[in-house]
Every structure is written in C-alpha cells, then in structure tokens.
C-alpha cells in the first residue's frame, strides 16, 4: 500500500516545493490554491494511493486528481483538495521527500495553520516558522516571522519535517494563527504575505480578501471531512505542553 505519482512534466532543478494539505482552518489548501491561481502554475504530476477514497475531481469540466503537483521553473505547489486519512499520511510524507530529492528541489515549505483561541480578535494573524533544522527557522525568523520554540506539531506537516530531518533535507513549516475548525482565508492571506517577504515574491492578496466570505461558505464541507481526520491525527497534542517544558 503506497502512493503512486503520474508525472506529466518534470520540474527544473533547485525549485521550492510548497505543500498545502487540509488541516487546521484549511489554511494549507487555501494558500496553495491561491499560489497556483496567482502564479498560473500548470499541472506537473498527479498523485494517488489505494489508501485514499476512490475519488476523481472535475475543474471546468476537466478531470483531475484531488492530490497533485503544479509548477513553473522555480516554484512547485503540492495541493490536496481532500482530507488525507492518517494511515496514508506516513507513506505520502516519505514519497514527497524522496520525489523532492530525486528532482533536486532546493527546499520544501509546508503551509498550514496553528489554532489560537483569540483568532476572532486578530485582524492580522501572525505567522510562525519551524523547520527540520533549527538554523533554517532562525534564518527566516530574522524577516519578521515568529519562531516556534515549544510545543507539539501534528499532521502532514509534522511528518514531512520528521522525514526531512531523517533524510537531512531542508524543510520549513509556515504556520499562520487561525481558527481550528472554520475555513480561514484571512490566515491564508497572512501566510501569502509572509511567503512574499521570505521568498522574494510579490503576490497581491486583495483577491483572496475579496473572496473571503465565499471561500468560507464553500469550504464548509471540506472542513467537516478534515475535522474527522484531525481527530485521528492527534491534533489535541498541539494544546499540550511537552513534559520537558515543565
């Protein structure tokens, strides 16, 4: 039982691979989808596994896979438009790191949310950074993002960082303060602004802010499905203090 990757086109070397998989506030897929649309990235590869529900997706009448990689010369984006079951997360993390290494990627950046209880009071959510090596996060934290110093991470981005740590591959996690169980395009906008600052891009987040309400209405179903997998992925640990902290 593993993942298969069907490549249509190979990316050029030394690219950054951004990853947006359904999790807290759906910040990952909202950000990844916005990057794909803003940068007009074409489909490079389709991913599938027997561990996933038997789904096919249609966009503008065109059949596609719910998990796929889009890209251009120096940026690739892996997006999942479905919640990934926990048992499928481990082999997917392994496959992503192996694929990135085989294609000579420069680094991986996972995009997600970090649940905060005061999200309703925050006009502009802060963005946190952590990485497979402390030095990568320290370097990025010089540019205005907060470094995550204590606590647990769970879900796909935790597994990707773990796998990158084992393989000694540079992987970074960007986490925006967000709602836990409501789709959060505002948190995604903060994340895109952080990407602009950290990686020298200039993506205008105005369209994302303008579509905020529509995105929140239309992603309710995906949020509901994602909550089921988040319960199995140990998300409650993100509220837990590590034993060595005491």
């Amino acid at each position, binding site marked *: 039982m593993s993942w298969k990757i069907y490549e249509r086109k190979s990316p050029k070397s030394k690219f950054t691979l951004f990853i947006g998989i359904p999790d807290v506030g759906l910040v990952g897929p909202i950000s990844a989808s916005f990057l794909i649309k803003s940068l007009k990235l074409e489909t490079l590869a389709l991913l599938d596994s027997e561990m996933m529900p038997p789904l096919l997706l249609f966009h503008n009448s065109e059949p596609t896979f719910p998990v796929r990689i889009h890209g251009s010369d120096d940026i690739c984006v892996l997006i999942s438009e479905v919640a990934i079951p926990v048992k499928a997360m481990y082999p997917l993390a392994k496959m992503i790191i192996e694929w990135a290494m085989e294609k000579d990627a420069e680094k991986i950046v996972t995009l997600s949310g970090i649940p905060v209880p005061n999200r*309703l009071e925050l006009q502009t959510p802060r963005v946190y950074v952590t990485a497979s090596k402390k030095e990568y996060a320290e370097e990025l934290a010089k540019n205005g993002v907060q470094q995550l110093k204590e606590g647990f991470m769970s879900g796909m981005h935790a597994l990707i960082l773990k796998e990158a740590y084992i393989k000694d591959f540079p992987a970074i996690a960007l986490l925006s303060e967000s709602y836990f*169980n*409501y789709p959060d395009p505002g948190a995604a906008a903060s994340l895109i602004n952080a990407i602009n600052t950290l990686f020298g891009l200039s993506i205008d987040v105005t369209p994302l802010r303008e579509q905020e*309400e529509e995105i*929140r*209405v239309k992603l*309710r*179903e995906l949020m*509901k499905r994602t909550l089921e997998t988040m319960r199995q992925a140990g998300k409650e640990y993100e509220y837990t203090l590590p034993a060595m902290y005491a």
Partner: protein
Amino acid sequence: MGEDWFIEYIKKIRREFENLLSEVERELYSPLIDYRTKTLQPLYEIADLGDKLMIRIDLPGVKDPSKVSIKGSENKLLVEAKMERPTSFEDLPTYACRSYNYYRVEITLPFPVDFKKSRAKLRRGVLEIELPKKIKYYKVKVE
C-alpha cells in the same frame, strides 16, 4: 418466562444504540444543506465554560445582527440567519444547482440552559451565544 423482561431490555438498548448510530452517520455523511428549507447548515462548536455554554457558529456573509434569529427551548437552539448576498452553487448538482442566502441550524444542547440570561454577539461573520447553565447546587455536610 422470567427472562422475558431481560430480552426486552436488551432489545430496547439495541434499538437506542442503532438510533444513536444512525444519527451519528447522518451527521457525518449528510451534506451541509437542507433542500427542504433551502438553507445552508453552518459549522458550529459548543464549548463548556463551567457555569455556561458558549456556542460559536460560523456565518460568513452575515453582517447585520438584525438578520439573525435565535430561538431556544429547554435543550434546543434554533438559529437562522440571512446573508448579505446569496452564494452561488450553480455548478453543483449536489446543491441542486442554485444559490443560497439563508443559514439554519438546530443544535441539541448538552445541558438545560437559562435563555432569559443569554447573550449573543455577531463579529466578522461569527456568532457567539453565551447560555448560562441551569444548575442547582446542594450543600453537602462534611463531618
């Protein structure tokens, strides 16, 4: 003959368990629309804050508090709200290819609450309802 009551009792538990299971399955697998009332079902959460319950409901597109109706009974809460603009699901047959501009949700409360002392606030499309629990405390003598 003396065991009949026990068999009936087991059957009753089984019926209750099956009802509970079908309610959970309905909750998990049904879409977040009610075609009968032409309304969208919002996402919500219930937090137990000790002496009160906090119900938080995500109502994107609802800006005017006067467009929100909250009705309560002993253990049920019915919330209906109108969006500023309709949201189109015209490409989605599973949403009957139409637009929606109303939310409706009926929530079963885990405790009896005092609706007369409840408060509600709408901020940035999120409705927060504070419902004080109806709790009677009895003093226990310690010897």
